């Protein structure tokens, strides 16, 4: 009886140690992959940081109208953001390589699904970047145009335009990432429909008299400016 227990314990220990022994190379491979990826990330990050600094990347980014990127960056430096992102990407790649070394079905399918999701993430980042650029451009155009038309609520219009574009961009990015697609579409439809309906009500009913007076005043003022203004610019 005791012999049988001893044999069973021995067999289970052997199986456990054997299974553990088969995992050790995978763990070591993961550690080595992480170590190498950290080293590589540090080197590449440093090279990228120096390269971008020499190119005055931070100044260029603000010149391109992407100053909001600086607000999201560590120490307000897009250079640090870009170099940090690249370093993180290298570390994640090293981690995935290490995980794949376990050679098990589960880790392989995990790696496959993560790799398959990467294009969506890249696409969403591109959509966000382009959206931020467009939002900045459009809001500046609206701000300058409204100020030049002497509209007292120019800033409000500009901020509203920027957020409208940004909300649209974020919704597009979320759809691209396949996160709560149905909710995003529904929320968006309600939001836009609501805004248009509210504007229609405000202009059509609530502000009817105000809008009429304002338009009449503007028409009179414009006609007066054209005829009576003694200033000749050109």
């Amino acid at each position, binding site marked *: 009886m005791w012999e049988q227990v001893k044999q069973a314990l021995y067999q289970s220990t052997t199986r456990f140690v054997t299974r553990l022994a088969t995992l050790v190379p995978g763990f070591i491979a993961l550690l080595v992959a992480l170590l190498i990826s950290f080293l590589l990330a540090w080197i590449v990050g440093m090279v990228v940081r120096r390269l971008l600094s020499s190119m005055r990347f931070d100044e260029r980014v*603000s*010149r391109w*109208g992407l100053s909001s990127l600086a607000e999201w960056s560590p120490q307000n430096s897009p250079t640090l953001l870009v170099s940090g992102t690249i370093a993180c990407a290298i570390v994640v790649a090293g981690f995935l390589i290490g995980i794949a070394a376990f050679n098990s079905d589960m880790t392989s399918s995990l790696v496959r699904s993560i790799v398959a999701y990467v294009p969506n993430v890249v696409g969403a980042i591109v959509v966000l970047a382009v959206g931020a650029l467009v939002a900045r*451009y459009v809001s*500046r*155009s609206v*701000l*300058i*145009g*409204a*100020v*030049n*038309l*002497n509209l*007292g609520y*120019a*800033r409000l219009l*500009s901020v509203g335009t920027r957020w409208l574009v940004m909300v649209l961009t974020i919704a597009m990015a979320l759809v691209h990432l396949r996160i709560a697609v149905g909710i995003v579409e529904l929320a968006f439809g309600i939001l836009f429909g609501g805004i248009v309906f509210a504007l229609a009500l405000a202009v059509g009913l609530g502000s009817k008299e105000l809008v009429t007076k304002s338009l009449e005043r503007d028409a009179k003022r*414009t006609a007066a*400016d*054209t*005829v009576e*203004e*003694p*200033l*000749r*610019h*050109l």
Partner: protein
Amino acid sequence: MEVDSVPQQAVQEIGQIDSADLVVGIIADLSQEGVAQICDALRTFPGNPRIVVLQNRLASGSTSADSVAPAQDSSLSLIPWVLHPQSSPTTPLGSVLAAYQSTLTVGARLGVRGCCVIASKLEHAPSKWVCRLTEPLLEASCDFVAPSYARRKFEGLLNSSIISPLTRSLYGLRIQNPMGPDLGISQRLFQKLLDGNQNGKTGGTGMHLLASLVPLVLCGNLQASQAYLGSRSYPPSDWTTVSSLLSEILGPIFLAMEKNAACWQRTRTSSPVKTLNEATPAPHMTETVEIDRLVNSFQLGIRDLQEIWGLVLPPASLLELRKLARLPIGQFHIPDELWVRIIYDFALAHRLRTINRDHLLRSLTPLYLGWVASYARELETAEENATEHRLERLSLAYELGKPYLVSRWRWPDRFNP
């Protein structure tokens, strides 16, 4: 220079002419009698030169049956020239600028000695002043004849506040109206314009051509003069298009500045150009300007556009502008030194592409209206002859501020006061 800019009907008629000595393009809305007077005056030139007159029929409304066509002969050809509205750009100056290109294109085709463009309605008979613009070209004594008009205090403000003093400061030529609109150009000068255009130096639009004139005269060692043409009838201003005007006009000027930087940085002082006839002072007119609205535009700009101006102007200028915005309208005054630094900083930002160039130039509008308010408040009750002194003071401020521009232009990062 694009051949497409010449209307097809005119091309056919020009094709029947072998050569000419002078091309005169009439863009202004002149009556047929006015055009006939111009043709008669052109016929009086000694040596019987061959002259081609391009007349914008759409502007003159001469399609009506009762109009009398000026007589033509072997020395003068009058070619009707219709600016197609659909081919004209939508900008305020679009059709006029296309007409400059057409005139120069025709001039190049016919190998003329000079081109003249008449774009203004003047209060004196046009026959007198067309000769003043064209004679020096036929005598080959001058390459660029710029117009000089009787100055009224509230007319040509964009030219008075920026174009003329900036041109004087940069290129050292004291020309009242460096960009016309009425002007005479010699063969040598328009050949340079055409060469520059082929090399992609001057760009394609008429405004680029006008902005390139004075730089080409200075850098090409050509002769410039100005002819006094009397009082000009200015088109009425629409305040809603001021930002478009600024963008359309200052863009090419700043581009020309960038292309000719080596040339204007060598120029230290300015000198008067030869004036072909004596100017007479403009009659005094009492006009009231709505200064409140202009100051309100300036204050609105200070309130909402500081984020954009902060990218362009140094902190010292921004601080001064903020102080100005708090002044009561009765004390509102933009010092010339500040205005000059603002223009130079905008020129630099245009070169460095600090922000989108169209945004940059349009964002100048409240500052420009602020300058107009300050100038109008100063001169509202002044005599007409005070205008000359006031604008001379502004021009001197531009010249005195030039070292600031040169320093910032050469070292935009190191020199940032």
